[in-house]
């Protein structure tokens, strides 16, 4: 069993109010020096069987059509060691 991680983040040009709200709160909490915060999603998939190229290609397709909405989001697929 292997774990594949799909990270989904809003495209850079899209306003991210959740990230901004975090960033605005930081100085008040005493954390300085963070110039930008973006908030996205992380999916951890437990994959049965080997994570070969074919499996990865399928997961990429899943991310593209389902886990992310590519109108507004970018994604990244990684095999976790």
């Amino acid at each position, binding site marked *: 069993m292997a774990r594949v991680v799909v990270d989904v983040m809003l495209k850079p040009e*899209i*306003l991210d*109010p*959740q990230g901004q709200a975090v960033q605005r709160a930081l100085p008040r909490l005493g954390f300085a020096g963070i110039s930008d915060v973006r908030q996205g999603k992380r999916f951890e998939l437990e994959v049965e069987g080997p994570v070969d190229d074919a499996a990865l290609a399928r997961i990429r397709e899943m991310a593209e059509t389902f*886990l992310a909405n590519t*109108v507004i989001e970018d994604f990244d697929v990684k095999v976790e060691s």
Partner: protein
Amino acid sequence: MTARIGVVTFPGTLDDRDTQRAVTLAGAEAVPLWHRDKDVGQVDAVVLPGGFSYGDYLRAGAISRFSPVMATVIEQAHAGMPVLGICNGFQVLCEAHLLPGAMLRNTGLHFVCRDQKLRVETSATAWTADYAAGEEISIPLKNIDGRYTADERTLDELEAEGRVVFRYLADGEAAEGYGNPNGSLRDIAGISNAAGNVVGLMPHPEHAVEPLIGTGRTDGLAFFTSVIKKLVSA
């Protein structure tokens, strides 16, 4: 003939029964449609009502968009059948690419429930013929993922083709329902496809069809009378 208007229920749909009531009050027959059924029978139009289908988990509308009933709705919409997506239904239509753009979390990050002032920008759609272009109406709005977003080119295209159907009335007292409630680009509350048969909007016309209930106004009824007239005369 009596028009038959299908109202889809996905798991987590909330406003299906209200929408059926609105359809009936407007004089059509409401036909409940189940998300698992690809066969929608003989319906003349379809409404995708509001709610939290699949809990709005992942993204609002993202999971419902793949249901069997949507395969048929997508096909029929391309063939010209009138389709209205309200709130979650609008989100489903965007996820299904029947309408361009996407919906994001409200800029205020809270769920917002209010009586909302809108301008109907065009009467040239299947669902707005009974309004006058420029008419101002007030209907309930309630969402947390209502910020309409698309790239500049798409927005310009929508404007140029007269496909921005509803806009939030941004200037005025918040207490009276004015203002852009969610940060939607260009104050867009609803749009249509190029043919004008598919319309989606965030506010809820089905909650504004009876004088006593909700806000006490009936500004939403014309959505349903519009489509019925079109269907009956067709």
